[in-house]
């Protein structure tokens, strides 16, 4: 049965954009991993592969002037919120044209002009920042909201409770977006976590829902309601996207692990199937439920590949970071 007749073409376009954004993150991360493995990057990278539906599902619904805070695993959030790929790569390459002029690197990609208040190397570091930004948004009264991405490991940091408390008491427009991949570095989170995370949010009586974080449409559906709730001034929300991290905690994980392991190859493989991988499964759905064809997806694949390759070239072509910059930007208008 040809479903084409039932399909709303605007939805097709939107869905294709979701697919493209997820794919862009995937391919960009794959390239970064390869570069990191090859030793061409200065620092290390924490890859978002496998979790793309979470960032894309959420950020596809945000306004450009909404705020997000992100984590050490922040490339996906940055890209999904509209951060520039070239500038991100140049940043990770440590170059002058980096989005942070080479000062921050992978763990600190930020574009304040787009409301991206930064990836963060401190686990839980974004919770209070987004709560503060939400307070600012509330005071300003223009309907902005803040989304705080954080991991299941970060949910054990006390700032999680503190931020939920103040956001509840002040009815702040912030969405606590927990990406629960079951892992905290080399620790299986369940071994160090009491109870279900969502109950911590429910304790504040806030909007709290859990959703399959590898299903971009399901994420959208839940987050759309959360955004409405927050934007309408009804206070904070908690949304938990359950997902899985495919790559190591960071590239070169094996080196750090020295032979030890915290999960099995089978466990990883089980999340890479066509049923569970967020991109494969959405691709199938695009074919089955929309008017789009394999060739549409191939075209997206090619476009994405081109953008990633161009970003690598941009980064490589960029000059070295400015050695004077720390002296110039640590303070505004002042010597350090």
């Amino acid at each position, binding site marked *: 049965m040809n479903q084409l007749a039932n399909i709303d073409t605007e939805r097709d376009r939107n869905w294709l954009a979701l697919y493209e954004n997820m794919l862009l993150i995937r391919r960009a991360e794959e390239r970064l991993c390869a570069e990191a493995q090859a030793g061409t990057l200065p620092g290390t990278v924490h890859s978002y592969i496998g979790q793309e539906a979470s960032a894309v599902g959420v950020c596809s619904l945000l306004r450009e002037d909404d705020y997000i805070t992100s984590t050490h695993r922040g490339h996906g959030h940055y890209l999904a919120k509209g951060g520039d790929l070239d500038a991100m790569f140049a940043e990770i390459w440590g170059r002058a044209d980096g989005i942070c002029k080479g000062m921050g690197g992978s763990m600190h990609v930020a574009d304040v002009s787009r409301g991206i208040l930064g990836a963060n190397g401190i686990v839980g570091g974004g919770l209070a920042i987004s709560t*503060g930004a939400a307070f600012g948004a509330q005071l300003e009264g223009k309907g902005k909201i803040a989304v705080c991405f954080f991991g299941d490991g970060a949910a054990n940091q006390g700032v999680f409770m503190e931020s939920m408390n103040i956001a509840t008491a002040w009815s702040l427009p912030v969405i606590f977006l927990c990406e629960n991949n079951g892992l905290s570095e080399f620790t299986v989170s369940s071994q160090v976590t009491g109870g279900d995370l969502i109950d911590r949010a429910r304790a504040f009586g806030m909007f709290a829902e859990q959703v399959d974080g590898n299903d971009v449409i399901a994420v959208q559906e839940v987050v759309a309601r959360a955004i409405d709730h927050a934007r309408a001034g009804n206070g904070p929300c908690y949304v938990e996207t359950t997902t899985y991290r495919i790559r190591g905690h960071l590239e070169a994980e094996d080196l750090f692990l020295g032979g030890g392991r915290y999960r099995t190859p089978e466990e990883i493989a089980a999340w890479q199937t066509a049923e569970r991988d967020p991109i494969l499964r959405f691709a199938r759905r695009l074919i089955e439920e929309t008017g789009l064809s394999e060739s549409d997806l191939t075209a997206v694949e090619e476009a994405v590949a081109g953008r990633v390759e161009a970003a690598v070239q941009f980064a490589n072509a960029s000059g070295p970071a400015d050695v004077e910059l720390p002296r110039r930007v640590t303070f505004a208008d002042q010597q350090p």
Partner: protein
Amino acid sequence: MPRKRYIQAINETLFQEMERDDKVILIGEDVELAIFGDTRGLYERFGPSRIRNTPICEATLTGMAVGMAAAGYRVILHMMFSNFVYTGFDAIANQMTKLRLMTGGQMELPITLIAGYGGGRATAAQHSDSPHPVLMNLGGMNVLMPATPADAKGLLATAVRGRNPSIYLEASGRGGDSGEVPDGEYLVPLGKAAIAREGTDVTIVAIGTMLKPALAAAKKLAEEGISAEVLDPRCLVPLDEEAILASLAKTGRLVVVDEARDRCSAASHIAAIAADRGFADLKAPVKRVAFENVPMAYAPNVEAAYFPSAERIAAAAAGIMTKAKVIS
């Protein structure tokens, strides 16, 4: 010029700055009723959208200040006692002081932290720290320590209007000290020391609360025929190295007085600057009169014994005068 109490100068400046710029927001624990008196009356004037009591959660408050600043506000965060700065230290040390650099200068962080510091009132070890050395080492944050009501006004206004994170350390229990305070707009530039007393034989650099005993020491020294110049740095970041060196060039001798624990203190740092850039002028060892490397004891007799006093300062200064001078 009218005479005002230190705390009153702060209070009036907060009124002035919040009146002047409605982007200035003040938050903190118990700021509505104002435990130190510095924020008194602001709530009645400006209401909950400008000043607000927070829950007790210092770790989040310091991080929130960053987020509020990123959202376009000028934040004043009152941390009550300086020891609670340690409770909220993470976002100070890892975010507030680093984010401008980490973002390549993208983030504006006009944040003023206020905290009461120092001992002398039997508040024991957890309500008496002088944390400025710790904050000075972080980089990325101005450290202001006004000693007089006038500077309390002028430095606070400058900090609140500035573009960088500052910590404004308010002398706990100085509420009662009075001094002349200029009316109207009064800004003290950051990084400009003040000569509190001129002298020719020895320079005494006195930080914050230490100005008072230093001036008392200078008076005692004068009676012994020693002319002490007393310099109040007012700001530790940025630090007016030139003023310190200029005074040292005149006197050739230096005593630095700091209420903080001695190890890696502001006193150490100023002494180190003297030993480097001021070396050619030094006629005698550089002395530090600071708190010993111990927490503050509760019992007043013990507290007093460890506190830099006029006697200790005068003795340190007299001890580095040439014999001839001392007995003259």
